[in-house]
């Protein structure tokens, strides 16, 4: 089990529906990762901005932690857990 901390900007396609955010696909270094499940979500704050965190499983089976900063509407990739 390997947890790698990352801090990368990513592009995400997400559904914003009924007050909830559901990330569907993200692009990291040009590679497309389809999100097969959102394992959990939680929220934090950075100053006045809400930070929406998601733990997602991609089609490769790896689990990623990503977040959306609602202050500047940017998505970031925080960490990946790879089952070794």
């Amino acid at each position, binding site marked *: *089990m390997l*947890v790698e901390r990352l801090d990368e900007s990513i592009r995400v396609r997400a559904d914003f529906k009924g007050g909830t955010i559901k990330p569907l696909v993200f692009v990291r270094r040009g590679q497309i990762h389809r999100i097969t499940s959102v*394992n*959990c979500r*939680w*929220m*934090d*704050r*950075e*100053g*006045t901005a809400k930070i929406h*965190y998601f*733990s997602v*499983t991609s089609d490769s089976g790896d*689990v990623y*932690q990503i977040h959306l900063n609602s202050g500047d509407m940017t998505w970031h990739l925080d960490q990946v*857990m790879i*089952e070794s």
Partner: protein
Amino acid sequence: MIRVGAKKQPNLIMYLDIDAFFPSVEQVKFPHLKGKPVVVGSGVVASSSYEARRYGISAGTPISRAVKLCPEVVVLKGHQHTYASFAERIFDRCKLLTPHVEAYLDEIFCDLTGTPAAQRPTLELGHELKQAIAEDPGIGVTIGFASNRMLAKLAAKDVKPDGVAVVRPGEEEAFMEDRPIGDVLGIGRKARGRLEQINVRRVRDLKEFPLTYLEKIFGRNAFLIHERLRGRDPYVPSLTPKSVSRETSFPRDTIDMEEIMVVLYYLTERACRSTRTLGLVPRRVTVKVRYGDGEGETASGRVLDAAVLDAAIFGIARDTFKRIYRRCRLHLIGIVLSEFVPARDTQPSLYPDGHGKRLGDLYGTLDRIRSRFGHSSVIAGKSISLMRKLERDSYGYILRTPSLTK
């Protein structure tokens, strides 16, 4: 409407404990970890999953020993604010049942007395709440119901993890009868040791003793213990915290006085900010140290100022520290602010010099900036050298083993 002759509703307290909190959150975040031994901590285990507990790993076990006990254990550093966010969601669910919620990091007391929830079958209510929390945020909890806090907590303890238990009105005394005396709130290790020496091990043994004898052992708490032995708990929790504490261990045991002072200043800053936010002024500052050899010491000093000024509190903490420090490698340092009085009740100086007021205004402004933009948005010169040593997030430096305010 007041109904004449209406029966007073019995008290109903709900105690909710989040099972193996930190590892449970990690297992929700990373589903690969489900069913695997997981510990969260750095240096020492802060919390271990039930799978890890089977190997004898519990809170306080050094990580190196945990890895020896169970080589396949997954060790994670964890993130306090993620856990706080999960806990918040559980607290919010409880707040739907009653406004009287007292929340700690991983446990919650709810006073359901007189609420519509108290009218429902208690077990059903417990299972329903447990199910809702298992769905969102996906964490297991144990719930106990009783007429007071102590019994509700003990009831939950009996069915941990993932259980619901009720002590029904009228069953309180019988519920306590066979329990070990250590289960009674207020009977600590010392008193228990003394009682066990005279072969008093169970509640029913101690109940035989008259109040006058209990007074010799427990002093002014004797009546409280007397009642608790019978399943009654007259204790009413204070809304004011008894203490605000911050502590951390060093990445490596150190004798570097500059490093020690920088960390102590940072901890003082954090504790002072929390205290100001609560509108309290401490009358006592306690410094806690633990050396590399495991020995520890605490000492305290009095606060005379009418305001919580970081520099003044740090001065007392520094002097107190110097009094007890025995110049060997330090493993952990902490500060505890206690004996609070409300800030509005303090006596301002008869001879104001203007400087104190300006400092008070300065800290007030800093607090407002930090609560809006995060503690890291302003770093004091004294703790700037920590930037080279510790990681930071918007909440401040990420301490190795941060403590939480009690």
